[in-house]
């Protein structure tokens, strides 16, 4: 079982468009949208939901006013300043640590579980997709990422599928860390900009920290050829394989508007050809082709 996770550090470099394109090139895989915070892969893949499950995670404190004697112990102990002036808990600030619940002398604080979102197993024209929707303003995105990656893995194993393609989140924090553990490799999609390069280096450090092999491809490479060359030189110097360049192509947006992958939209475009080359390189490297 192999898992390729597409990440970028910086947002908006083309992770999702690239994963969708890979989906239309690969023949046997499970797709996993681990960007649970702003999941977009479904906008291209048009999934038919087969199974839906609630994501329950953590707890939140609620003061029961009729029991509360306003002793202020909760307020003194809460490190999130979540206890409001009228002894109501600010649900955005509440960390769910349960300290107030434990120390309330009147047992006046309820501590129900949080419903933080849903996750789905769906069918798409490119095979199964496991995806999720974290409720707005919720926490525990890392935990949700871990769940959907585990579900993808189980689904793949049950169906004798040997490859997982995971669309990762931006950044280097909790959901990204949850996306990396145990992956075969990460492909970092970088744009040739000072921001793109800066953010790639940070997410690469993260991949190194967790000892996950990393590869790089440059999207919109012709927007700044100097930056592209610098990224490739940096990759070479750091034993990081730069496996391809994709040209800047407004057809990505046009394809997205039609709900298509770039391969479906225009199989003969330069960008489609570049992505096919990258995909072939990945197939060779990780022996993804079926024998």
């Amino acid at each position, binding site marked *: 079982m192999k898992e390729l996770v597409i990440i970028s550090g910086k947002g908006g470099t083309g992770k999702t468009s690239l994963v969708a394109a890979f989906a239309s090139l690969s023949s046997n895989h499970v797709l996993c949208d681990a960007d649970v915070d702003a999941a977009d892969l479904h906008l291209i893949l048009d999934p038919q939901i087969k199974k839906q499950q609630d994501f329950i995670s*953590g707890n939140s404190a609620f003061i029961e006013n009729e029991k509360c004697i306003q002793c202020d112990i909760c307020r003194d*102990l809460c490190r999130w300043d979540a206890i409001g002036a009228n002894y109501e808990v600010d649900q955005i600030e509440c960390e*769910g640590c349960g300290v107030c619940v*434990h120390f309330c002398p009147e047992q006046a604080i309820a501590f129900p579980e949080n419903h933080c979102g849903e996750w789905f197993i769906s069918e798409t024209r490119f095979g199964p997709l496991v995806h999720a929707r*974290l409720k707005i303003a919720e926490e525990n995105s890392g935990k949700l990422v871990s769940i959907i990656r585990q579900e993808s893995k189980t689904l793949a194993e049950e169906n004798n599928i040997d490859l997982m393609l995971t669309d990762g989140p931006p950044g*280097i*924090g909790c959901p990204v860390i949850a996306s990396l553990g145990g992956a075969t490799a990460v492909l970092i999609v970088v744009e040739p*900009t000072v921001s793109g390069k800066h953010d790639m280096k940070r997410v690469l450090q993260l991949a190194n920290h967790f000892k996950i092999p990393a590869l790089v491809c440059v999207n919109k490479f012709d927007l700044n050829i100097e930056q592209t060359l610098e990224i490739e030189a940096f990759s070479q110097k750091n034993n990081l394989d730069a496996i391809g360049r994709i040209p800047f192509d407004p057809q990505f947006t046009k394809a997205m508007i039609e709900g298509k992958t770039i391969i479906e939209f225009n199989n003969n475009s330069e960008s489609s050809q570049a992505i096919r080359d990258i995909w072939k390189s990945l197939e060779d490297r990780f022996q993804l082709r079926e024998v």
Partner: protein
Amino acid sequence: MIISIASGKGGTGKTTIACNMAVSIGHDVQLLDCDVEEPNAHLFLHPIIDNIKTITTPVPIVDEEKCDLCGKCVEICQFKAIVILGDTILPFHDLCHSCGGCELVCPVKAITETGRELGEIEEGHLDGLQFVHGRLRIGEAMSPPLIKKVRTYCDADKLAIIDAPPGTSCPVIAAMKGTDFVLLVTEPTPFGLYDLKLAVGAVKILGIPCGLVINRSDIGDDKVMEYAKETGIPVLMEIPFERKIAEAYSRGDLIVEIMPEWKNKFQELYEAIKAIVY
């Protein structure tokens, strides 16, 4: 006044708007880069850094001499950050949310606190602009505590512009909460619109007035504009796609540097926000 700049989707131009607006206003202005996972504003502003501070969050250490393995700390910890293995008590600092519960509940006072490094805060300046950003330590999972620390640098006598991280979960909320206005930067594409709706949902939960900047306004379709009309969210600026702008961005140049006529537009953007807030 505090203006936060957010987006839902990444890469729509938050940092571009934040930096160009800050430089166009030029005085009595702060730029606080709260995208602590991937801070980029410094790449465009090149501030002179005056001060670097390491930020930590409290985590428990256990005096094994005193600990009698009663397990009360394990029981109160909601995050499985302290466990008993055989006859050893083991705190997992990476999992700790710093609530202090274990220390409070320990009957033999065996627990004290030390710090786990969250990252660094760098403070600097550029002419009349004060610059602050956080930089999350590689491997650190929790960004909201560092974002909240960056927010403490807000000066009530100045205009504070906050560059928020992408997404709609806790890090963005930490960056937007309690700000006077949220400027949402989007692009007219299906991904841009979908993530914009989520971001608007988050702004609504916080009850903050908001407005839109549509970046690369001519690359996609009209759905973002239609959505703005339907929901009554004002479109405060549109920036058409120009290769010149994209190339300037790629080099780390500001729009107002290569096209000084945009300075007025960013000042007008600020005036428009002021008119909504006051």
